[in-house]
């Protein structure tokens, strides 16, 4: 029963993904590893789509994964699975709001959770790097260390990094802009 499993997988994601934005990413890689419903490549494409369309990234990725796995009903079931734990937890917390915020165990748990969340997202990013910038097959075929990296990809990455971090004029542009520009560069150069 694929819909039930989709709901359950995204219920877990919604329950354990802490910190918003890309926090759902490690869970989606985990789902891919265990179920084979979609590939790493599809996850990378999905991140791009989620970042450049309206709506919270976490919700967008759940909808996308759900659609790939089970069509429109899959998209709905995955999204509902993702939001159900949040609804339940928030409705419980609302009744003891002050106590929750001032509870020292909650505070201390988050002291450990935040760096863990950053580490999990970094690891997910590492998977995308392996996919986009590293050419393992070409390296194995030729044995030449220069073939290990996609130099065009690295050059593009360096340019985007400079534009998103150092150049004042482009620093605060929406990610959508960089994604669109990269698509054009991809068509012209890759």
């Amino acid at each position, binding site marked *: 029963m694929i819909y039930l499993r989709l709901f359950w997988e995204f219920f877990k994601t919604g329950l354990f993904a802490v910190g918003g934005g890309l926090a759902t990413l490690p869970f989606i890689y985990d789902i891919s590893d265990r179920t084979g419903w979609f590939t790493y490549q599809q996850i990378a494409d999905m*991140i791009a789509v*989620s970042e450049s369309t309206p709506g919270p990234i976490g919700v967008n990725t759940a909808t996308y994964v759900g659609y790939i796995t089970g069509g429109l009903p899959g998209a709905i079931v995955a999204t509902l699975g993702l939001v159900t734990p949040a609804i339940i937890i928030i409705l419980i917390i609302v009744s003891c709001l002050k106590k929750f915020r001032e509870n020292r165990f909650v505070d201390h748990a988050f002291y450990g959770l935040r760096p863990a969340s950053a580490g999990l997202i970094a690891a997910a990013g590492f998977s995308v790097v392996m996919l986009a910038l590293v050419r393992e097959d070409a390296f194995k075929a030729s044995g030449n260390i220069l073939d290990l990296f996609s130099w065009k990809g690295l050059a593009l990455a360096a340019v985007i990094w400079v534009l998103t971090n150092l150049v004042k004029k482009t620093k605060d542009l929406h990610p959508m802009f960089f994604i669109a520009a990269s698509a054009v560069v991809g068509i012209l150069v890759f």
Partner: protein
Amino acid sequence: MKDKLKQLGRLLITFAVVGVTTFGGGYAMLPALQREVVEKRRWATDEEVMDWYAIGQCTPGVIAVNTATFVGQKQAGVLGGIFATLGVVFPSLVIITIIAAFIQNFAHLPAVQSAFAGIRVCVCVLILNAVVKLWKKSVVDWKTLLIFIAVFACSVFLSISPVIYVLAAAIAGIIVKELEARKS
């Protein structure tokens, strides 16, 4: 009854507007939330929105969804929470489904494939930027650095469910802080 329905409908629509005008992750939602909920509807003050936001951030789940549930619950009880949440996810459901269908049909074209090869490079940098931002806020001493490195290394080299890391990190946080408190 009729008033209640009207109120739920308004919550649904307001949060659908918030959803459709939010690009990106949790933080990106704040301006849209302030405009729709504080300025237009006057359902809350700026301070209240910041409070909900802080709580949304320190509870599991997608921040936007958490905040929507909060506002909705405050306005119209449990049903209000559910309707506000449905509102915030509705635009995503429609837009992403259309795009995903489109990509599935055109993914085999060489031009689309090289476009996505370029996009993937961009995604690497976007994730790097996000991690750097999170790092600055979360890695505050050598203990948190250790947690970061351990979780990163383990999840690159082992295939264990991220659930385990999340639980372990929460417990580690509590133990570290308790030990610190006892020392002083």
